[in-house]
């Protein structure tokens, strides 16, 4: 699988130049921590006053990345990290086990240097330091390109202070390390400094909800001795080298946050990385002192252009010969563009099995993927684009970031924030977004993971943003028609109509079962007291129609016989019994992914000799600005009670300011759906 790192291989920009660093004066402010110098007060500390329940506290987290030059290897960077942690509680012991990841492609590899770690404890009033031994470091090859360096710090107890430091030397200057200021334990301070020569321009993206206490830019002069020769003349004899001095400027960036609160995940959240305070980098352009400027995706047009000529993206779309027979077949059956699009979509979807890997670069080649009948999202969806184009349709790839991968910031032109590609096909006035990785997904929907803001169309002529958010809803409706017996048993029919996203979710659910029988059993096991017979599932394969599930049910435990009374909750197993938003406050938005609609139509036949005691009044509430509503009505018509409930959530996203209203809205729904009906004997 191609990764972005592999792309660093195209960085052969120093033909004809060898550089020798004579001096690299580092004159930035010294960091606030020195390895081995521990304040006895921090050892005596027993809790953190700003978060007394925190199991540990990061006393300081310091990172530094410097982009430098070497004679042998060209540009490289050194990333240095130093973290110091106070352990309050046993549950934080895992922080004493750390991992560092190193990458290597071909001859270019990352190396770790200067790894040191220690714990500090008070024994008999004195600070005792336990330095980590070499035996406690264990290198593990994760796969062919990644190594994990594991290390564990000795003598960690409640009250210990631990610290570690290391440097990574890396040739991959396209991707200098990002920095997270926030984690699930609080931090007193977290700081990141980055320096790089003026020839480089890195784009920076700040994430999260915290403000920097320090956000500074400064410069420093760097002097370098340059030995110039002509590389084509073979090995260099020392006497042939003319020495020259050149000077350039390093740009230095410094970011610091003090008193960083712990980050805790909340329900209905999009990717955690959208919320954690962080700063990310990506190389935008490189302008060497002598030579051509190389722009790395500094405009969207440039991104478009680069991808179009990339041999694992755009160039793959040039060779469709291997599809000839299939194209011919489709052409011979229909010439209607819509038919052709759907045919191609089905064909790719059924032939290709997704390997669950995201990506927008083709693994090997589209032909190879086609032959193996499996691949990542790029293999599958670029095949679809290719096929659509071969059919004479107007189709382009759309790159995007999945929900799990985090939100895109369109002003920040960073290609490594994307991780997925789908297809766009224009027919007349309509543009269809297609993802062929999921069998149950119809051409009218994108899978859940793709619903994340906007995607970028990569095209010779139409490169632009496109809205990925779905106008289609999750539509769930349930109809029950039941007769109540005097012993409290309910029996009759149920039917579910599941449309659009509800159809997708339940089709996937059915596909995950071995048989319809198992599906029925699970329904019974999830709803005690319900016996389901004659389950029928319709439109399972007609993906553009609602999925229908119907059958006969008997409910034995819903209606209580209380003397002269029969009491039951008319929402039965569809009751929303508890508020999904329990926490009183929320820091981050609530993300439902798509609008939702729930409709319930329940009909109960009252047994002879009984009548409904009281009819609860109708409930109708709405969220502000038409974002949602709930309507519930219970009507009695002779011997029949009709219950009609509708719950609409019309927008996918609610901000934290909306949270309280949303929580109260759900409280009302929960309260309403707890309402009991009372039937009383009439004679």
């Amino acid at each position: 699988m191609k990764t972005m790192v592999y792309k660093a291989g195209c960085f052969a920009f120093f033909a004809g130049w060898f550089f020798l660093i004579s001096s690299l004066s580092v004159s930035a402010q010294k960091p606030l921590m020195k390895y081995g110098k521990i304040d006895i007060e921090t050892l005596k500390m027993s809790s953190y006053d700003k978060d007394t329940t925190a199991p540990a506290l990061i006393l300081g987290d310091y990172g530094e990345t410097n982009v430098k030059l070497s004679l042998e290897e060209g540009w490289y960077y050194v990333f240095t990290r130093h973290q110091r942690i106070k352990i309050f509680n046993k549950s934080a012991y895992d922080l004493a086990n750390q991992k560092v990841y190193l990458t290597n492609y071909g001859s270019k590899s990352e190396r770790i240097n200067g790894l040191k770690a220690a714990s500090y404890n008070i024994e008999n009033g004195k600070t005792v330091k336990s330095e980590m031994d070499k035996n406690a470091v264990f290198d593990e090859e994760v796969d062919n390109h990644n190594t994990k360096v594991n290390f564990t710090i000795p003598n960690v107890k409640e009250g210990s202070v631990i610290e570690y430091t290391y440097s990574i030397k890396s040739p991959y200057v396209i991707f200098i390390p990002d920095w997270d200021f926030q984690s699930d334990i609080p931090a007193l301070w977290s700081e990141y400094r980055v320096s790089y020569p003026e020839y480089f321009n890195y784009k920076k993206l700040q994430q999260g909800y915290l403000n920097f206490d320090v956000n500074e830019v400064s410069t420093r002069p760097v002097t370098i001795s340059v030995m110039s020769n002509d590389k084509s003349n073979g090995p260099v004899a020392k006497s042939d080298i003319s020495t020259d001095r050149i000077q350039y400027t390093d740009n230095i960036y410094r970011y610091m946050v003090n008193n960083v609160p712990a980050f805790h995940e909340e329900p209905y959240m999009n990717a955690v990385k959208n919320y954690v305070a962080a700063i990310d980098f990506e190389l935008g352009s490189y302008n060497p002192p002598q030579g051509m400027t190389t722009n790395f995706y500094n405009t969207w047009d440039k991104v478009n252009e680069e991808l179009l000529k990339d041999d694992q993206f755009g160039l793959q779309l040039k060779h469709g010969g291997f599809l000839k027979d299939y194209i011919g077949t489709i052409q011979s059956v229909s010439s209607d563009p819509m038919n052709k699009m759907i045919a191609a979509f089905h064909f790719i979807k059924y032939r290709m099995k997704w390997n669950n890997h995201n990506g927008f670069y083709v693994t090997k080649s589209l032909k190879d993927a086609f032959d193996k009948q499996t691949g990542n999202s790029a293999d599958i969806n670029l095949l679809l684009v290719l096929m659509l184009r071969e059919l004479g349709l107007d189709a382009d790839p759309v790159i995007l970031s999945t929900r799990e991968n985090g939100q895109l910031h369109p002003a920040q032109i960073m290609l490594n924030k994307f991780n997925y590609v789908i297809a766009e096909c224009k027919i007349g006035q309509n543009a269809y977004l297609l993802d062929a990785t999921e069998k149950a997904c119809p051409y009218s929907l994108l899978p859940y993971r793709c619903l994340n803001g906007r995607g970028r169309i990569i095209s010779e002529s139409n490169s632009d943003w496109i809205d990925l958010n779905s106008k289609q809803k999750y539509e769930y409706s349930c109809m029950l028609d039941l007769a109540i017996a005097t012993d409290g048993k309910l029996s009759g029919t149920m039917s579910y109509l599941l449309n659009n996203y509800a159809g997708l979710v339940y089709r996937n659910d059915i596909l995950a079962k071995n048989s319809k029988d198992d599906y029925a059993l699970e329904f019974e096991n999830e709803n005690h007291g319900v016996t389901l017979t004659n389950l029928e599932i319709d439109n399972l394969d007609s993906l553009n129609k609602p999925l229908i599930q119907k059958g006969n049910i008997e409910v034995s435990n819903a209606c209580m016989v209380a003397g002269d009374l029969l009491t039951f909750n008319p929402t039965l197993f569809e009751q929303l019994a508890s508020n999904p938003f329990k926490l009183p406050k929320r820091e981050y938005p609530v993300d439902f992914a798509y609008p939702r609609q729930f409709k319930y139509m329940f009909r109960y036949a009252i047994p002879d000799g009984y009548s409904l005691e009281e009819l609860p009044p109708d409930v109708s509430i709405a969220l502000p600005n038409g974002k949602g509503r709930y309507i519930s009505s219970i009507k009695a018509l002779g011997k029949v009670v009709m219950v009609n409930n509708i719950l609409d959530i019309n927008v996918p996203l609610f901000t934290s300011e909306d949270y309280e209203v949303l929580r109260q809205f759900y409280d009302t729904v929960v309260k309403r759906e707890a309402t009991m009906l009372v039937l009383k004997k009439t004679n």
Partner: protein
Amino acid sequence: MNRRTPKIFPHFNKMLAGLFYSVLFFILMCVPAFAQYPVSEIPDSLKSNAVAVIRDNTMNFTFVNLKKNVYSVHSVITVLKKTGDKFAAFTEYYDHFRKITFRKGMIYNANGTLIRKVKSSELNDYSGSGGASLFVDYRLKQFTPLVSSYPYTVEYEFEEAVDGSFSFPDWLPQIDYGIAVQNSSLQVNVPAGYNIRYKAFNMHDSCRESEQHGVKSCSWLVQNLKALEREPFSPELRFISPHVLTAPSDFEMDEYKGNMDTWKDFGQWLNKLDAGRDVLPVSTVSKLEEMVRNAQDEKDKIRILYKFLQSKTRYVSVQLGIGGLQPIPASVVDQVGYGDCKALSNYMLAMLKAVGIKSYYTTVKAGDYFPQMIEDFPSFQANHAILFVPMKKDTVWLECTSQICPFNYLGMFTSDRMTLVMKDDGGELVRTRMYPANENFLYTKAKVRMFAEGNASATISRSYGGLQFDEMMYLEHAPDNDVKDWLYKNIDIPNYQLKLYSITGDSTDKPEASLKLSLELVNYASVSGKRLFVPCNLVSKSDYFPAKTRERKQPIEVSYGFYDADTVEYELPPGFSPEFSPSPVSLNTPFGDYRASILIMPGKLIYCRSLLFRKGTYPASQYPDFQKFFKDIANADANKIILIGK
């Protein structure tokens, strides 16, 4: 602007579509010239309830000599359904002692046409740590065939060369529920004169023996095994499906020679691995002696040293060398303060030894599903180490990897099962203690003040004991956010706010803890006109129901018992009186006893509930009664009191 598609599919002609797809698929699936393992050769009886069918599995194991063993495996499996995909993957672990050679990989479609060959370069090579262990040296070769249409068939051939002769095949042809087996065989080859040890379950016990050219072979074959359905409370698969366990007599691993004929012999070998690793520095010994100088008795000394172990060390998984069997020396643990189960148990043993107390290193099969050892077949069956300290009157068991476990407590992970204790002269089987139902308690006392609009405020006190305490043990020491999350997830009340909460452990080493809660209950009672419907059961509602299965085949096994008792006092809102109160429920069954009743008093109601659930084994035929017991409990727990206002 709506750029997305309309919902309907306007022009497409269904008949055209049908024709169209059949043409496409005809091209896709050319007629096989030479079919391998077509699905049509699977008998229908094997397809029912199966997600995959093992067409053929031939395992050939050869004990070449003490230093070298070889496995050679041919396997063909047909995946019928998406849920069977995972069984088509190739996954083999290896390390310094084991080498995998992938010989063949083929993927066929339903007709038996070759879709493609799998090259050994396509195999992924991963570290075996999976993120959990810090130090592991085992790795895995892995390949997942991804085929779009079902059924499909995969065929693999590989060889595994093993240094040493410690592990022999553990043959379970039916690898999981939902798997049918057409043909599966095991053959064990040893030099003539070598004693092959085996035990067979759910099949004829003896192997087919043959001998030629100085090689003795022993083989087993199973055919046409129907897929089994997973059933709740059933014995482990290895006890209900054909299973052959084999083991060496004489063996060797990393220069350590041993014999496994008896537990005693096997224990002697494990003793060899541990030998000399229980020595502590003199300075530590004198520190330990000082610590126990004023102890009241021997048990007190053990307690003091156990507390010291818990404060000094932490668990770090280290699975290196000799199959992860040899502990890190006690002197190293003394220095670094961490280790795995072997290292920490051995360290505790060394500390006890330093103060003159004899204890024994013990291996056990750990797991909260109470896995049981096969007692009459000496072989390596453990995955964990603990420490056994017999005393004159008493016995102490120590779990040495936990910093929070009460002294002499084992919990779900290792209690009530046979273990292998390493005595001086070799191994000996000893059973860990069983916690009876009355020690695994959960007592709840609560007061609820009800208000006319349905809200209520509650103060709740719960005491957890024994195996029901296990979860509290972790929560007591968990970060506050985890505790809150757990409470919000586990307190089964629809809508409430947590006002106060605390978890307190027992100060006298009893495996007990108490949870105190103060809650504001929102809409606890539902209001219908003049009536209030009050759920009787506040926090102990049982919503568990043993899953319905097609036809119960296995006996019902309940691994441990427990006892719950609740008393909840509801103070009624002014002006309300009970209109209906559910009649008392009393269930007496072989599985357990349940009682629930409501006492009506002026201005208040008192709800009492008790549930005794027994450890035991019952025939499959009693499954409907077993289900009914839970169903009756769930129904009784769902009862509501109806209050009526003036």
